[in-house]
């Protein structure tokens, strides 16, 4: 995929080129939104809103990392969605999450024994709950670093904060996650129990 050519074509109004970019980045964008928002529906709304906003703002993209630029729009859309949710709460994010089907099961296509499936589901539930227990700014940095694998510089670019702020937020978020996960120790695999 010639990303630069697609971006230029999309900037000229070629919607097919833009949709090629969407297909390439939509999984990453949705997963960031999913971890930040905590449920599939809100994440889908935020992701769609972000892609529409990105298309409208494409003329202002002046080069650099398109992925970082796009994910910044995604995180901003998530913040907007969270603010909207906090103003008019309709249901608990945790409840919504627990009602969601466990991620990763739909497309694995592998036969999984019930015990293993249950352990994996417990771990995912624990992780999601711990993520949701973090403040928004710390959760954002933790998702981008540990789930999506961005470097500190990229995170600083996406979130629009200084590199030192990224480091301190990441340190605090991991400390909180560790404390949170210790509460689910009996659910974790033996190798991952924190107080061995």
């Amino acid at each position: 995929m010639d990303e630069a050519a697609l971006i230029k074509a999309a900037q000229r109004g070629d919607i097919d080129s833009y949709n090629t970019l969407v297909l390439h980045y939509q999984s990453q964008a949705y997963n960031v939104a999913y971890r930040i928002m905590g449920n599939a529906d809100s994440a889908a709304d935020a992701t769609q809103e972000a892609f529409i906003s990105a298309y409208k703002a494409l003329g202002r993209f002046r080069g650099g990392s398109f992925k970082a630029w796009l994910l910044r729009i995604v995180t901003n859309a998530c913040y907007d969605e969270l603010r909207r949710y906090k103003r008019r709460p309709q249901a608990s994010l945790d409840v919504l999450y627990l009602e969601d089907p466990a991620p990763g099961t739909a497309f694995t296509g592998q036969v999984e024994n019930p015990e293993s499936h249950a352990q994996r589901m417990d771990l995912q539930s624990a992780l999601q709950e711990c993520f949701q227990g973090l403040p928004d700014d710390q959760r954002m940095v933790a998702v981008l670093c540990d789930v999506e694998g961005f470097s500190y510089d990229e995170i600083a670019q996406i979130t629009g904060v200084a590199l030192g702020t990224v480091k301190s937020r990441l340190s605090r978020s991991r400390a909180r996650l560790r404390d949170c996960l210790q509460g689910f120790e009996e659910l974790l695999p033996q190798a991952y129990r924190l107080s061995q």
Partner: protein
Amino acid sequence: VSTSLNEQDFIQLNAYLDGELSTGEREVFEARLAGDVSLRQELDALRVTVSLVRMAERAPLPRNFTLDPAVYGRPARRSGLSGFWPALSTAGAALSTLLVVAGLLFLRGGGAAMAPAEVSEALREEAAEFEAPTAQTFEEPEAEMAEEPAAAEPTEEEAPMAMEAAPAEEPSAEAQMTMQAAPEPGYDEEGAPPPGGLGGGLPSEEPAAEEAAESAPDMVEGEAAPGPTPTLTPFAAPTTAPTVGVGEAGDRAAVAEAPPQPGLAQEQAAAAGVEPPARPKYGAAPLPVILLVVGGLGLAASLFGLFISLRRRR
């Protein structure tokens, strides 16, 4: 050695784990790590936490997030010429505006040049003075033409020649007398009007008018005087009528060379109580009108094109 860790130590631990320390920082930190048990324990606990967090599975996409071309699609620019059309439209608008302005200036400036206030006023007075002869000059030639058309009727081709020939011929005795009686201040040799205007050079006494009334038929009959017949160009004929009627033969050429006075022709005809000859459909006057119409149409078309271009861009 075990030391209590502060926030900076935890930040360094995370950076070390993520490979975000520079080579120098890493060497220093590893040296410290080798001698600090609590730092090593914290590093191990952090490593387990990060491993757990990285076990978070990717959520399957509920759907595609591609944009609907019917809603968000717009035709991509076909060529580099697309940016050329607005520029062309703008240039067309500017050119059309110039045409309109030129037409307006032509109308205003041309009118002033053709009928300056002083000349117009003087000639109006003159026309009033020679109302009767002028009427005659419109009527008599027709009657004469009916009797002897070959002798009296100067054609359009003949008329200018006759007018040019007039000064060379000897003026009639009456005309010479008039010239002697009122020698000043008439037209100069080049035919330019005196500073005081035409009125200053034209006698206003009744006898002169009578002489003119008498001399006019003479000239029409026998001489080469142009004769203010309706067969001449509508602008030239009425203009020359009173001038010739004065009987100043020396002035004929000068007046004949003077530019036509379209406004004056109507005024004179109106003063004489004669229906002025019909204006030609495509004379000198339509030029500014054509400029205005073409410029206006061009301006409208250019502005419309510009509007469409901007709307498409939006």
